[in-house]
């Protein structure tokens, strides 16, 4: 999983993306323009994090899953 490091903590990219969708539901394009990360990287990371339940996807938008919020405060 590209969004988790070998210690089980979020990678810097994953942390940036989850912070962006913490309080609002955003599209991948909005996350990319807000964080400055390349769009392809945001899309693949969001797909990874949606499959792990870190974010909830609704149509084209993503929001942090409340249950995953503690991950943001780790490491």
């Amino acid at each position, binding site marked *: *999983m*590209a*969004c988790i490091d070998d210690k089980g903590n979020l990678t810097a990219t994953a942390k940036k993306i989850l912070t962006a969708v913490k309080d609002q539901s955003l599209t991948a*394009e909005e996350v990319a323009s807000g964080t400055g990360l*390349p*769009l*392809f*990287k945001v*899309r*693949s*990371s969001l*797909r*990874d994090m949606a499959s792990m339940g870190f974010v909830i996807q609704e149509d084209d938008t993503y929001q942090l899953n409340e249950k995953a919020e503690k991950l943001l405060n780790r490491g």
Partner: protein
Amino acid sequence: MTENIQNNQEPEVRSLPRIGSKAPAFEAVTTHGTLKLEDYKGSWLVLFSHPADFTPVCTTEFMAFQEIYPQLREMNTELLGLSIDSVHSHIAWVRNIEEKFGVKIEFPIIADLNKDVAQKYGMIMPEESSTEASRAVFIIDDKQVVRAIIYYPLSTGRNMDEILRVIKALQTTDRHNIATPANWKEGDKVIVPPSPTQEGAEERMKDKDLECVDFYFCKKQL
């Protein structure tokens, strides 16, 4: 007959994607995690293959690709490398490039061990090598259509200026509905497509904004 073909087990022949066709979809393991072609929708993409990690020509190319990466990103264009090596080999190689040459490779590289992507894009030239990808370059636009294909043999490193030039020319064509002449560079005059009607051709010859040698050969400055 069918039996003979099956017994001979001829390798499957796949044709190259064509210019103007949709780029073949893929999902691949890369040095930046699993990526799909569709992740690049909305951006232009230079998908390029190299024969092998830890080889000298490829190392010079990777450093050269990294050098133009900021320019490409300004042109809404991403880079994605590929070879038939493992992701750990890719990671070790890019770390080695940084350590030995001081160049940090920032773009992802596909680890195409099962040759899935290489075969979809016709990157393997069996007469040259059946285990390595050739030096292929696919320029894919923001709608995921193949716009240009460039091939180099194993022994010849690619020319980054030409890759930049082709992308700039294609994007200029899209933006202004023009064509670009031989050796065109940004700032040079462009070709106005010939008029399909006689009336249009005659009017064009009178157009003061155009430099026409004849009705079919008109240039203009953008």
